[in-house]
C-alpha cells in the first residue's frame, strides 16, 4: 500500500508526506509533557502569572503564523544568540532543518492540545481527589491513579488535534525553516510549491485530498475521545 501511495503522490509528494508524519509525530510527542503541565496549571493552579501563562499558551492561535515563524527565526536562527548557543553547547540546530519544522509545528499545535486537556481536567471533580487524599494517596499517586485515568481520553484528544495541526502547519514552518524538498518541505509546503509549477493540478489535487483525509480522521478521533472522557467521568 505504501508503494501504491508513493506512486500515486509522486516522489516529491511521498517525501513530503513522510516528512510531515515524522515532524507531526515528534512535535506531538515532545509537547505532551509540557502541555499536560500547562493544562494542569491552568485548570487547577491559583498562582501569580496564571493569566500571563494562559495568554502565552494561546498566543500562537491568534498571532499571524508568519510572525511566530519570524520570532522563532530571530531567537533560534544560527546567528541568533540562543540558536548559536544551542548549536555550540548541545549541537542542536533548528533553522532550516526538520527539527525546526517540528518545533514550529509543536508551538502552533500547543494551544489546541492544552485546551483539550484543560477541558478534560476541569471536568474532573476535585472532590474525588480530596477523597483520595483522605485515603492516604500522595499528590503524585492521586494524579497517577485518579486524575490521569479520568482525563486520559482528553489527553489523547489533545494529542490527536496537535498532530493534525502539525500535519497542516504552513506559515510558521515556511518562515522559520523555508521550503527545502527532502529537508523541510512538509505536505502544505509541497502543495504550495506545486501550485507555483504550471500543469501540476493533479499533484495538487492529490495532496489536497490527502490533507483533508488526515484532518477529518483527526477530528473524528478527537471527538470520539472527548465523548469517552464524559463517559469515563460518569463511570459508564
Amino acid at each position, binding site marked *: 500500500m505504501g508503494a501504491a501511495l508513493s506512486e500515486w503522490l509522486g516522489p516529491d509528494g511521498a517525501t513530503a508526506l513522510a516528512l510531515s508524519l515524522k515532524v507531526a509525530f515528534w512535535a506531538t510527542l515532545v509537547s505532551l509533557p509540557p502541555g499536560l503541565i500547562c493544562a494542569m496549571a491552568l485548570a487547577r493552579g491559583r498562582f501569580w502569572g496564571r493569566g500571563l501563562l494562559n495568554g502565552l499558551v494561546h498566543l500562537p492561535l491568534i498571532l499571524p503564523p508568519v510572525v511566530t515563524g519570524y520570532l522563532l527565526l530571530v531567537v533560534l536562527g544560527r546567528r541568533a544568540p540562543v540558536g548559536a548557543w544551542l548549536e555550540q553547547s548541545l549541537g542542536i540546530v533548528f533553522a532550516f532543518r526538520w527539527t525546526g519544522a517540528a518545533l514550529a509545528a509543536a508551538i502552533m499545535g500547543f494551544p489546541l492540545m492544552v485546551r483539550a486537556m484543560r477541558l478534560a481536567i476541569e471536568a474532573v*471533580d476535585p*472532590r*474525588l481527589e*480530596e*477523597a*483520595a*487524599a*483522605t*485515603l*492516604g*494517596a*500522595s499528590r503524585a*499517586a492521586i494524579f497517577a*491513579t*485518579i486524575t490521569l*485515568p*479520568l482525563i486520559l481520553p482528553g489527553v489523547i484528544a489533545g494529542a490527536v488535534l496537535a498532530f493534525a495541526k502539525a500535519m497542516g502547519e504552513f506559515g510558521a514552518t515556511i518562515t522559520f525553516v523555508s521550503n527545502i524538498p527532502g529537508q523541510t518541505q512538509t505536505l502544505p509546503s509541497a502543495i504550495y510549491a506545486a501550485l507555483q509549477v504550471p500543469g501540476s493540478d493533479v499533484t495538487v489535487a492529490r495532496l489536497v485530498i490527502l490533507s483533508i483525509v488526515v484532518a477529518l480522521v483527526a477530528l473524528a478521533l478527537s471527538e470520539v475521545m472527548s465523548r469517552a472522557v464524559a463517559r*469515563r*467521568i*460518569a*463511570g*459508564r
Partner: protein
Amino acid sequence: MLTVALRHRFTGFALNVAFDAPAGVTALFGRSGSGKTTIVNAVAGLLRTDAGRIVADGRVLFDSATRVDLTPQQRRIGYVFQDARLFPHLTVRQNLLYGARFARQGAVAPSLDTVVDLLGLGGLLPRRPALLSGGEQARVGIGRALLARPRLMILDEPLAALDGQRRAEILPYLERLRDDTAVPILYISHAMAEVTRLATTLVMIEAGRVTQAGPIDRVLSDPLAARSMEGGDVGAVLSGHVTAQEPDGLTRITTPDGDLLVPMVAASPGQTLRLRVKAAEVILSLSRPQDSSALNVLPATVARIEPDGPTALVQVRLDGGGALLARITCRSVAALGLAPGTACFATIKSAGLV
C-alpha cells in the same frame, strides 16, 4: 479519643467549638449551616481553621500554636462523604482496596472479606459505582474508608441522600460498624432518630457553637438541652436487653431501671436495644397508679424542673441510674407540689424503639 478545639471566621459566620469524642460513636447534631461539616473537614485536614488544636489518640493532627498541620494523607481519617465520592473509573472492589496500599504499617487491618461481609457488598464487587443505588454507594464509601485503616472515621450524613426505606436498610450496618470495629466514629446528622439509635456521645452544635456535649443518655434527659432542640420531639433514651417474648405478643426489655413491656419487637433474647421515651408520653404521679391501663411504671425522683411556657420539662432520676424527661403542665407541677427531691412514679404510655 479525639479532642477538638477550633476557632474559625468566615464572612458572616464564626465557629468556636471545643469537645471530646471518646471511643464509640460521637454524633455532631445540629441543623444545616450550624458548622458541622466545617468541623469535620478541619479534623480531616481538608480545611485549615484560623486557630485550634486537634488531637487523635495522642497524636497532634493540628495545632495552630505550635504550627503543626498534618496533611490529609498523614492524618488517616476515614471520611465517608455525604455524596459517597466513589471513583467512577474503578470497580467497587478497586474502590474498596484503594486506600489499603497507602495504609499505615502495623495498623489494625480488617480484611476485604470481613468488610464485604459487614456491609453486605458481596454481589457488588465487579460493578462500577454509576450502576449502584444510593444506599449501595453509601455502603461502599463506608467500606472504602474502613479498609484504609483509619485512626478515626467521619460519617457526614451518609443517610441524608437516601429515602426512608434505604435508610432503614443501612442503619443496621452502621450499628454493626459501631459494635464490631474499634474505630471511633464522628457522625454528623440532623436527624434525631438516627442519632438516638447510633450515638454513644452527643455534641449539639448551634450557630458555630457547642450547646451541649456528653454521653447521649445524659444529654437527652437534660431539660435545658432538650428545650434547645427543635419541635416537641424531645425525649430520653433507655438502654436494655430483651429478656423474653411474652405469649400475649409483648416483648420484655430489662433495663437497670426496671422491666419494660413493649409491643412485639423482632429481636431475640439477649439482644441490646435502645428505647426512646418521648417526654410527652410520660406521666408523673405521687403514688403508684392502681387502676390504670399503663403497663410501664417506674419509681423515680424529681431532679430538675425547667418551665417552658405553660408546660414544664421535668427530669426524673430512675432507680437504676437512668433518667427520663416528662413534659407536664406547670399547673400539674404546682398541684402535685413537685420539687427537686420529690419521690414519684413515672408512667410511660408508650416507648418507641430507635
